[in-house]
């Protein structure tokens, strides 16, 4: 499936197009080499690594707490789940009990972050299809979520909120009211997005039955999250291997039908509604307590051993494999990100489609490149 394309292999009427790393719809710096026949894609080779920052090597040179800000930068659209995956891994390794209130706060924050991340997906996806306005609308709603985050942890993008053993700070008193107002408003705004996109015949024409992802390909290539749920497969780590307080909360897993671009879109729309419910439920169930962080030594030294954590990030399954030697620094950290698996399905499902469809398919996979390159 992967190899270098070069000019000598080309037949008549075929040509190579180098799409990216600087291209409006490669969402950052993905480079795709396309073999085209007119408008049709005959072959496709993705090249990644333009954002490689060697975070895994950095992790080996930082203490467990010091590495937490770096996890913000793995997936900049959804830093909370990245934080949480790291925290969960170390808590599992060191056997740390997390206070219940912290778990609820984690759920609120990760679900809000899931909405924020899906909003970026929705905006960028519609932008890829040529509709500019939903992009601005989604960013307008995302701002509100970022305001909530900034109110709580002081940052809008690199939150560094979920910590090993808990969370960094309690929510401010006005947070709950603002969250309720946001959720109420956001449900109406979701209807607006759907009015512009969901049943729009142009949108339907661009997305229905385009880029169908068969379930076996998805499983084989390691796709996860909404990408695999779009292929009519109800798989969600929050249900399958529950962590945090998800077992106490009530939500469903939306799935698509055939696995085309539209299914992946509608799964994310419905997930945003579910996340609204989850955030509300978690806020209502928030225990009265002041303890938001387990008592830990200043320099954390987990026992020697290894662990792998796995949580449901907005884009799919995210996890860390951590080897500890009992030192204050991890011996080896392997970061498994959702986009890494999701990007691998791009080539099998977009060959044979047109260049306009490639943009739609790639948009629907919701790949964040820094997550792939790390």
């Amino acid at each position: 499936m992967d190899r270098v394309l070069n000019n000598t292999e080309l037949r008549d009427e075929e040509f190579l197009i180098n799409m990216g790393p600087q291209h409006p719809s490669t969402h950052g710096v993905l480079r795709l080499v396309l073999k085209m026949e007119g408008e049709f894609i005959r072959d496709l080779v993705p090249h990644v690594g333009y954002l490689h920052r060697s975070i895994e090597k950095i992790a080996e040179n930082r203490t467990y707490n010091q590495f937490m800000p770096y996890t913000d930068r793995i997936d900049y659209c959804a830093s909370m789940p990245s934080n949480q995956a790291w925290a969960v891994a170390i808590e599992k390794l060191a056997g740390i009990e997390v206070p219940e209130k912290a778990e609820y706060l984690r759920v609120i924050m990760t679900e809000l972050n899931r909405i924020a991340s899906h909003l970026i997906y929705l905006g960028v996806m519609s932008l890829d299809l040529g509709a500019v306005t939903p992009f601005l609308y989604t960013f307008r709603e995302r701002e509100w979520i970022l305001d909530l985050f900034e109110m709580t942890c002081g940052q809008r993008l690199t939150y560094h909120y979920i910590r090993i053993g808990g969370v960094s700070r309690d929510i401010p008193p006005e947070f709950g009211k603002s969250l309720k107002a946001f959720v109420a408003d956001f449900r109406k705004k979701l209807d607006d997005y759907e009015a512009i996109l969901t049943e729009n015949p142009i949108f339907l024409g661009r997305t229905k039955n385009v880029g169908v992802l068969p379930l076996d390909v998805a499983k084989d290539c390691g796709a996860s999250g909404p990408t695999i749920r779009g292929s009519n497969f109800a798989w969600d780590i929050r249900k399958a291997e529950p962590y945090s307080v998800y077992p106490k909360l009530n939500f469903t897993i939306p799935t698509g039908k055939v696995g085309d671009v539209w299914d992946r879109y509608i799964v994310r729309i419905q997930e945003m509604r579910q996340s609204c419910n989850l955030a509300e439920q978690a806020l209502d169930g928030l225990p009265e307590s002041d303890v938001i962080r387990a008592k830990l030594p200043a320099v954390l030294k987990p026992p020697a051993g290894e662990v792998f954590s796995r949580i449901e990030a907005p884009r799919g399954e995210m996890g860390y494999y951590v080897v500890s030697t009992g030192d204050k620094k991890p011996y080896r950290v392997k970061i498994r990100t959702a986009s890494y698996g999701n990007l691998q399905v791009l080539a099998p499902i977009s060959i044979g489609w047109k260049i306009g469809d490639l943009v739609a398919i790639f948009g629907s996979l919701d790949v964040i490149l820094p997550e792939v390159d790390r």
Partner: protein
Amino acid sequence: MSTIKETIKGFWNLIVGLVTTAKYLPRPAVTLQYPSERWTMPERSRGVVVLLSDPETGELNCNACLVCMKQCPVSAITVTQAKNEKEERYPATFTIDNTLCCFCGICEEVCNFDSIKLTGKYEFSVFNKADLIYDRDKLQELGRDVKYEKKRKPKPAPRPAAKPSEAATASAEKPESTETDKAPSGEEIP
């Protein structure tokens, strides 16, 4: 027949889309005209790092325990210790390299003496990269107007030399700190 129905439905949905965008046309903008209007930053906002001073005496709270320097994940903080004539530690130099700083807030969290804080200030772009390396005076100047409350109970300090209350009084009783700042080289602890 179903084709005609589909077509009509399609046109209807196109009109629904137009109505939705038209709905937002007369609404007031949600954006701000940045240099003339400004957002009020939340109290917890994590922006430029400053050094806090005692509001009564105007002296730095820092007693150079070096914990922020050790905990900084990007090594943006450099502190050198010095001792005044009362054998109390104070930071002879305190440099924060804002080109490295990732505004994670770890330094504020680990500080036991309410002396370093991330503030809501965010406008610090300069034309020269070297100007982003803030020294002690600049950090102190930035921290002058920052309000803070002594919210943290002092943990046992990593070095048992100074207790926070002593540190505060120590820094309060340091009248010649500006002079020592000018000639700190002789007093540095390696």
